């Protein structure tokens, strides 16, 4: 029995594993959002708009996706990533935040699939796998400002 108990991770190990995933995914999303406001070393809303329009126009130009669709996704993307990053770092409704984050990565992957950007899809696939891992461990979440019910 002692052999069995040593091979099974204790709850605190799952908690630590989830905390690491939460920190990584939170920081990744937060800085992924912030960098969208940067252009030539300066940060502004004008730069954000220019960057996201470039993204939308570029994807539309290289795929079947119409501009209204790519713009509708691109324009809120940076704000969404920042909000999700903050939610994960602070621990705000972790399950919903993770599912939303997974959907964002799936949507981003869809855009890159449409322009046949295989490397980018694989890169996002890694992110998605981490989100999936986080969802599997979310029940061990601690230190949450706004925890899920019964957490």
């Amino acid at each position: 029995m002692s052999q069995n108990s040593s091979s099974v991770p204790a709850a605190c190990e799952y908690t630590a594993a989830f905390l690491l995933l939460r920190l990584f995914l939170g920081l990744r999303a937060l800085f992924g959002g912030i960098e969208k406001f940067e252009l030539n070393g300066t940060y502004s809303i004008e730069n954000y708009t220019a960057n996201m329009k470039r993204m939308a126009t570029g994807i539309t130009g290289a795929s079947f996706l119409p501009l209204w669709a790519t713009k509708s996704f691109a324009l809120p993307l940076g704000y969404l990533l920042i909000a999700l990053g903050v939610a994960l770092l602070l621990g705000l409704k972790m399950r919903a935040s993770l599912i939303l984050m997974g959907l964002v990565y799936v949507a981003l992957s869809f855009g890159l699939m449409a322009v046949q950007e295989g490397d980018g899809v694989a890169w996002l696939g890694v992110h998605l796998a981490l989100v999936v891992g986080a969802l599997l461990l979310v029940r061990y979440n601690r230190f949450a400002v706004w925890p899920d019910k019964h957490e």
Partner: protein
Amino acid sequence: MSEPTLPATAELSRRDFISTGLKLGAAVLVAPYVARGASGGQAELKVGLIGCGEEGRVLLNAALKIPDIRFHAVCDIWGYNRTYGERLLRKFGHDPKPFEDYREMLAQVSDLDAVIVATPDFMHAEHTNTCLKAGKHVYCEKLMANSVENARSMVLTARETGKFLQIGHQRRSNPRYLQAREKVINEARLLGRITNINGQWNRAVSEDLGWPERYAMPQAQLEKYGYANMHQFRNWRWFKKYAGGPISDLGAHQIDVYNWFLGANPGSVLAGGGVDYYTTHEWYDNVMAIYEFATAQGPVRAFYEVLTTTSAGGGYTEYFMGDEGSLKMSENPAYTKLFREARAPDWEQWVKRGYIKKPGVPDPGDVPLKPWEKPRPKLGGPSRAGVVDVRETAALSSWDLTATLDKAIHQPHLENFFDTIRGKAQLNCPPESGFASAVTILRVNEAVAARRMLTFDPKDFVA
């Protein structure tokens, strides 16, 4: 073996998930509207396109990235091209009316501010002159026209109407070329005295263009618009009736740079060429030319070759050679390089001023951007890789320009045209410059036919 003991956890109910998702989503969905309010603000220009073929599509794709312009009309005599242009514009949210005849376009969409002309060379003068007379500003693709007289008529019409006419020598608006000319050559004088130029555009053998049989134009329609048959319509570049051949198609861009960088027009041209390879072409498929320029610093001998049967020599470059340095320019940054002669004064001050950079110093701009990516931020200070490269290699004479272009290569030239209409800029290639280049380039074919050196009179370059 017992099951691992896990702490008790609660399930997330569907209601909880939707409720939380809505709260998180609501805040971010309003954010773009805040951002959107901060952009643009200038009056929208109404634009039409005549010619939705190969070059028209390139210009459309570049123009679609420019804010505050809207396409209201597309025109092409071939329904296949016209539909392509119309669909592309609709995909980007424009609502263009399609036309077969450009006169109908001008009559029915009378409030156009500007027209982009991307038709075969022999139609440039007619399309441009009619649009200018209808009160439109015109961006016309190079070569300005297939004859000096046609080109001259365009200059005169632009003057008479007072409308802007930009000729599509797009390198004149490329920030990399602007930096090379204004900073590196004219201000810093890093090349010293320029004595020679060597340019080329070599392309591998290509098949003639075909067409889907069910979309072929009827013979009567082809003849109405001046084409002998569908083959000549699709391959107009190779026929004397419609264009000037490879020296005009490809060489025009680069020989225009010779004139522009030197600030001079040539005094003579010697050329050789022929229809050496293709059995279906009328124009010379291989041409080599030598110009002589008399500049304020002394004579410059300039060689140019356009070969359509081999890609030897690596693409398209304009190589300016001086007694202190040489600059190999190309629209492709990978082919661009600046070389310093051992006798040249120290170039460090120009590095500090940001005109050039040392070899091996990586620049985020060196990595090609995908159309949807934003420029990557620059890191401060020389990189470790750069230091190692400088220390270990002897390639100290090889330098790089600092300017980069992160847009489609035609976009800055179109932006310059639209900014000029708005009163914010001056044309980078006004009709007088386009005319001088057309004279310079068209004379090459004459020299090949004459099999002797032809001279230019300075008056030849004045419309």
